């Protein structure tokens, strides 16, 4: 970019001449360069190189893609990934909607307390949370002990190293990402619409179904897309809380590349995952600015 060179060529002027304002802008623009270059080298190039290996390893061609879309083992993992992500998205929506609703309609104190409850797990190391679930859900864990003691069950339930464990763990990890966009949209809903409907005689149920629910839909779509995207690429929770039948695409990629050195297959799977993620993220970006989600936690 020309900005850095132009900046270096100009002598420093103390007073604010009309040109110096323009130069200040150029100087400001140049500030984006170090971070961009850094990420190009340490992030974009590595990811690009990986994607390239999907068609270049071990030989050039689209064989790797043919393999992953034909062989049952890969197809089953792809299906698993979509099913688990879909289920987790649905569960987080069912839990997140009432939660965000109460948060958006409650008193400022309620709001702050509820935001804190969502933020604590958000900031806590994912390993700490997963470890806690292992302690709680294992055969001799707290949940099974409590159920046995209360006489509800006689044999301990298998709550972990299977699909149930994956759902419980992922729901807890991803629920904050459903609540943030839902709350952001719900808290901006103009209360006078609800009041108008109410004044016109609509019972509360009708006010909710015909006015509040439609107005909250952008938040629902954003939350659903965000949670689904994050679920698709999830690794840690399914790897620790799931069983051999709950392998998702991220684990398969790790296994192919990290354990078997199958760069071609791993890279083809990574490409499929990345294309899905980017398409959904582009869609999501139309509903809610991505940086607002990550930046708007309080």
């Amino acid at each position, binding site marked *: 970019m020309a900005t850095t060179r132009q900046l270096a060529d100009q002598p420093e002027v*103390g007073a*604010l001449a009309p040109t*110096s*304002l323009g130069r*200040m*802008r150029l*100087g*400001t*623009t140049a*500030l*984006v360069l*170090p*971070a961009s270059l*850094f*990420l190009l080298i*340490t*992030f974009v190039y*590595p*990811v690009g190189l990986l994607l390239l*290996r999907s068609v270049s390893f071990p030989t050039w061609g689209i064989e790797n893609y043919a393999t992953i879309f034909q062989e049952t083992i890969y197809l089953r993992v792809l299906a698993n990934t979509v099913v688990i992500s879909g289920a987790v998205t649905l569960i987080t929506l069912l839990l997140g909607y*009432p*939660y965000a609703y109460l948060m958006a309609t409650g008193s400022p104190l309620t709001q702050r307390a509820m935001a*804190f*409850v969502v*933020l*604590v*797990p958000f*900031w*806590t*190391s*994912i*390993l*700490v949370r*997963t*470890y*806690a*679930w292992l*302690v709680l859900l*294992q055969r001799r*864990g707290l949940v099974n002990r409590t159920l046995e003691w209360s006489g509800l069950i006689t044999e301990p339930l298998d709550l972990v190293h299977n699909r149930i464990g994956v759902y419980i763990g992922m729901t807890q990890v991803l*629920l904050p990402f459903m609540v943030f966009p839902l709350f952001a949209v719900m808290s901006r809903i103009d209360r006078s619409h609800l*009041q108008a409907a109410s*004044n016109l005689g609509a*019972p*509360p*149920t009708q006010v909710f179904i015909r006015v509040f629910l439609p107005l909250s839909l952008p938040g629902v779509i954003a939350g659903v897309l965000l949670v689904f995207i994050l679920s698709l*690429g999830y*690794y*840690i929770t399914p790897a620790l809380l799931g069983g051999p039948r709950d392998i998702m695409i991220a684990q398969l*990629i*790790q296994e192919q*590349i*990290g354990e078997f050195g199958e760069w071609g297959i791993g890279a083809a799977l*990574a490409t499929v*995952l*990345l294309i899905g993620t*980017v398409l959904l993220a582009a869609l999501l970006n139309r509903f809610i600015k*991505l*940086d607002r989600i*990550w930046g708007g936690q309080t």
Partner: protein
Amino acid sequence: MNPLGVAVVPPEERASPFARFDLPRLLLVVVCVAIGIFLILPIFIVIPISFSSAKFLQFPPPGWSLQWYQAFFSSPAWMNALKTSATIAVPTTILATLLGTAAALAMIRSKFPGATLINAVIMAPLIVPLIIAACGIFAVFRIWGLIGTIGGLILAHTALAIPFVVVTVSASVRTVDQRLEQAARGLGASPLVAFRRITLPLILPGVLSGALFAFVTSLDEVIVSLFISTAQVRPLAVQMWSDVRGAIDPTIAAVSTLLFGFSLGVLLLVSLMRRPSR
């Protein structure tokens, strides 16, 4: 909100559909309390376990002791991991905060050709699944000879932390009136002085929470570290990962409690810093 059809809401209350306290509302509160418990109680469970006197994982603990903290602080593997993590997290925080703050200033304050593309490059680590980043970085670092090096871990963690800093700092740059800095320039301050004396103090809360975000990102990062670390250079999160996968030894509960306490502290700090800018 009255799915039970109890239609005895007097008109004056109907006027404010939010401020009612009826049965459905009560149900809603109960449901939300249950969700809240589901979100945070599991994390608190590690605290009593970490102070247990039992030799194995046992709940409720038969008695109390500090043995697992002792085990943590006297284990060379854990101490080494802790030291490695600190050696990585501090430079990562500094580097990511510098690069991210500069980028945030440029992205908010000036319009330039290719801004969308640059924005995509900078935000990429937020969107690209970590497993893909991990495999790509692993491939490139093998070629560059950075596997199992502190430097390699710092570079990778910095890349992952930059977008968090950019997002956090951008939010606070948006709230600062640019004319303040221009006024300082008009009064004869050099661009650097104007920035240091006017803008920097105003965006400092954002920069500091960005730095904390970067630190936590580095400390908690598992997936990329798993690929590029070795038995000799192994950060805390990777050490934890391998222990959680093996036996669930209560030493992890002690580490978890320490990390959880640290996260709570960071969360409180960030929310304290956020308040003035809002």
